[in-house]
């Protein structure tokens, strides 16, 4: 009955109520959105780092190198010579080294030349079909297979570079040999082939471009956008016959993912690379930490803003309760006359406020998740990154819940005590 009374009272003054709830909803929505974004963002970023100690690639921004080679979101820093890279891949400190060569895309999804170990690194298996072992065979990530409805045995042409509108390599057709199992990591949105396939696509360009390419940080593919593909027209037939063996000499790759045998490698190996080559070794953990700390400032500022809004909503609840107290003192006196105890009045006022805050919290949580769905659809289009709106970060959202309810209690405290102390006789006598 007290609950019902509190509920009815709240809606008896809908304007006050709506204002307070809107403010609360806004603050809770912002905070829960930030919590979810941060948590899932960090989780996605961290899970992709697993098994990569450093990345070997062309000189340039280390963050860019990490973003491009580990997360597949930025353009690569350039290319490195495979011959030179191989020396470092076979270094005694190195436990495993996975080469990556970027070239084409298929409908916006990157085709990456690598080794089957790349798939294993993500804990992914070929769920149907088999791994690529011939040139131009590809394994398609689970998300792509789902979105584009690709099956084993399908064939397609790649487009040049990483732009969707890139020139189509019509002379070579990729064959889907397998579909990778779902991992929730970047590999779900990649098409994997062997490195030779990438070289094959771009053969004959090498000689003219070896000098320019390593510094070519913009597109990072193996040749220029404007290149004519005359050679392919000439050598089409021959290519198909010789496709099985593409010489490694003078070829380039984009990056190598390195895992060390022990900590020693972590300390010395990157320094050796920096001293002896024109390549760089960047640590994903270090770079991503740097990125998060940059984000962190922005997120923190937003979080303060949201808590500020929550404070204002607390004040708004306080003012609403305090103002109506004057009108409601007769009601309170009457309840006392009818047998209500002081504590029941105290709890009535507290309960009204807590009910407001609870509604605000529930609505805010929902609105925050709707926002996350919207953000997720954008990031999915642009970065192939999705967020799960149904995930709960119990600990942080629990704290948020407690804070919200605490705001409610705090706002109602003075009005509630006033109701508790109400002098019934005086109130009724002055009526």
């Amino acid at each position, binding site marked *: *009955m007290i609950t019902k*009374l509190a509920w*009815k*009272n709240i*809606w*008896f003054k809908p304007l006050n109520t709506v204002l307070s709830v809107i403010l609360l909803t806004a603050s809770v929505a912002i905070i829960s959105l930030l919590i979810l974004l941060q948590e899932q963002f960090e989780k996605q970023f961290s899970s992709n780092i697993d098994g990569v100690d450093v990345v070997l690639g062309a000189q340039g921004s280390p963050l860019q190198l990490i973003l491009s080679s580990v997360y597949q979101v930025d353009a690569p820093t350039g290319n490195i010579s495979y011959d030179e890279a191989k020396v470092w891949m076979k270094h005694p400190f190195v436990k495993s080294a996975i080469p990556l060569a970027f070239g084409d895309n298929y409908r916006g999804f990157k085709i990456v030349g690598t080794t089957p170990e790349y798939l294993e690194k993500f804990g992914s298996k070929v769920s149907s079909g088999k791994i690529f072992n011939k040139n131009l065979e590809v394994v398609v990530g689970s998300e792509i297979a789902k979105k584009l409805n690709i099956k084993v045995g399908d064939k397609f042409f790649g487009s040049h570079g990483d732009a969707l509108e890139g020139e189509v390599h019509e002379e070579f057709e990729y064959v889907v040999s397998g579909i990778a199992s779902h991992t929730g990591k970047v590999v779900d949105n990649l098409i994997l082939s062997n490195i030779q396939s990438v070289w094959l696509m771009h053969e004959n360009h090498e000689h003219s471009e070896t000098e320019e390419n390593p510094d070519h940080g913009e597109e990072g593919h193996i040749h220029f956008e404007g290149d004519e593909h005359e050679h392919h027209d000439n050598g089409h037939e021959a290519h198909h016959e010789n496709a099985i063996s593409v010489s490694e000499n003078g070829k380039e790759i984009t990056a190598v993912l390195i895992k060390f045998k022990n900590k020693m490698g972590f300390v010395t190996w990157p320094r050796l690379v920096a001293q002896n080559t024109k390549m760089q070794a960047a640590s994903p953990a270090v770079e991503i930490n740097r990125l998060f700390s940059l984000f962190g400032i922005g997120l923190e500022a937003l979080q303060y803003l949201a808590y500020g809004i929550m404070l204002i909503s607390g004040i708004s609840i306080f003012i609403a309760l305090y103002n109506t107290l004057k009108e409601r003192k*007769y*009601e309170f*006196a*009457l*309840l*006392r*006359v*009818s*047998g*209500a*105890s*002081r504590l*029941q009045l105290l709890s009535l006022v507290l309960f009204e406020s807590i009910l407001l805050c609870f509604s605000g919290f529930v609505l805010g949580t929902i609105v925050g998740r709707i926002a996350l769905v919207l953000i997720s659809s954008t990031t999915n289009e642009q970065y192939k990154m999705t967020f799960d709106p149904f995930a709960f970060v119990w600990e942080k959202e629990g704290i948020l819940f407690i804070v919200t309810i605490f705001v409610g209690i705090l706002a109602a405290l003075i009005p509630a005590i006033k109701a508790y102390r109400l002098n*019934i*006789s005086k109130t*009724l*006598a002055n*009526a």
Partner: protein
Amino acid sequence: MQALVKKKLNMIQTQNITFSYSRKVNFAFPDIQTQSGETLLITGGSGKGKTTLLHLLGGLLRPNNGTISIGETEISSLSEKQLDQFRGKNIGLVLQQSHFVEAFSVIENISMASWLATGKKSEEKAKSLLKQLDLEDQMHKLTSQLSIGQQQRVSIARALINEPKLLLADEPTSSLDDENAFKVADLLSDLSKEYKASLIIVTHDQRLKDRFSNQISL
């Protein structure tokens, strides 16, 4: 006949009660006794402490000295919480101006009073009471949508829902026109008899003085 008289115990009994708001404002009230079903009119000019006495009888104020017994309970010996409960169960109060829980409908206001005192909503009883008071059609309206006369009758229903031993009315008719004033007076008197409650009315309304003979003046 003898047995019947013995059963009629004093419902209300006060002895030597005094009360003071400050050193200058002191009240000493005459002793009051009423029996169940009986009506007592307390009259007197303003500033004589009519309302104060009513609040003392209703347990809204505590006397400085003296005792107030309702039924077999000496109410000044009750704790604050016990007093709240006792008031809810045994005392019905009708005021000059009716106050309600504005967010509640007529019927909800009445069952709220029942719930606070007994923990039960007794909606059936509330409905039959409203029927008796000719308010059946107003049951689901908000109290602010009723006329003053109707509001006063809702207050009576609310005061009677828990079948109190004592029904207190503070100037119940002063803001009503003649027609409504007599209606309310009749209802108060009839219903208190029906529910075997003592009725004590504090008033300076001449219409009531003419209607009820059992009076004391402060």
